[in-house]
């Protein structure tokens, strides 16, 4: 029976809901792997690299199922696949390079721009200039490295009256970046290789139900994780579209 190492985040002493969700996810994957005839073992990945290497060497693992989503916020999550690559192990999830780029939203945006894929204008500590599209209108201020909508609330929608004001703000909040706030519709697109072919799965459109006019239509931490919140109760996904040309365009860009 093939041994599978499920590597998962070390949960903090006071785990957040997204951390608890990752733990639950690991258990569900373990159950599925057991049913599929594998021998899965869950272990914790930490910033103690020697300990991680010890775990990697402790068995003849057929592969590593990588669920390491948080290491010092999101900033070091590429270390896990980097270690698997160094030890020439098979593993699930993105390569270290992909995780390094996408876990920093500034790098991810640069990758979009280099690939000529339109993205919202932004300013981070590494930007050379402030785009006019960020001045005098609503922008959204986000953590550059966090995921799962951590750090995003209604107060993340801000307005700056000058380029200098934005520069000053980021100078004192280096872990944040300022992004053009696109008022419109939000879609989630998932891509997966199925039977050797890159497949775009049904596209989800976010629904903001009965939001007061003054309330920003954004997915924040509460809408994902706080079951008692207004945001959680009034946001949902729909997969039902009338605009098929939009879906075709989204699929083409994603592939």
């Amino acid at each position, binding site marked *: 029976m093939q041994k599978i190492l499920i590597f998962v985040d070390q949960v903090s002493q006071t785990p957040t809901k997204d951390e608890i*969700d990752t733990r*639950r*996810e690991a258990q*569900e*994957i373990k159950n*599925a*792997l057991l*049913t*599929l005839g*594998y021998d899965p073992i869950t272990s914790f990945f930490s910033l103690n690299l020697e300990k991680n290497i010890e775990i990697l060497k402790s068995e003849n693992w057929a*592969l590593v*199922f*990588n*669920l*390491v*989503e948080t290491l010092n916020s999101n900033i070091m*999550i590429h270390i896990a696949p980097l270690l*698997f*690559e160094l*030890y*020439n*192990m*098979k*593993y*699930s*999830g*993105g*390569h270290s390079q*992909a*995780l390094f780029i*996408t876990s920093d939203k500034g790098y*991810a945006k640069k990758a*979009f721009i280099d690939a000529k*894929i*339109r*993205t*919202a204008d932004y300013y981070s500590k590494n930007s050379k200039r402030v785009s006019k599209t960020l001045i005098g209108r609503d922008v959204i201020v986000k953590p550059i490295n966090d*995921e799962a909508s951590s750090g995003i609330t209604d107060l993340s929608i801000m307005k700056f009256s000058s380029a200098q004001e934005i520069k000053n703000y980021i100078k004192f909040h280096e872990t944040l970046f300022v*992004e053009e706030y*696109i*008022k*419109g*519709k*939000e*879609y*989630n697109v*998932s891509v*997966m*290789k*199925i039977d050797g072919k890159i*497949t775009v*799965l*049904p596209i*989800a459109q976010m629904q903001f139900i009965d939001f007061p006019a003054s309330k920003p239509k954004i997915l924040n931490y509460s809408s994902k994780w706080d079951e008692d919140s207004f945001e959680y109760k009034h946001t949902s*996904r729909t*997969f039902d579209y009338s605009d098929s040309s*939009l879906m075709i*365009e*989204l699929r083409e*860009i994603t592939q």
Partner: protein
Amino acid sequence: MDKKGNLYFLEVNPLAGLNPIDSDLPIMCGLKDMEYQRLIDSIMDSVNFRLAKL
């Protein structure tokens, strides 16, 4: 997508959530008649064809 119909890509997540109840990928696979166990099996298959690189 803005009011003029322009599409903007904001983020990419190469480590998709795999909670069978509320994560996007399992939900979207379910709509393609791919059950959770088959999704995990499919991930295992794709890993087995991909050798880790230095």
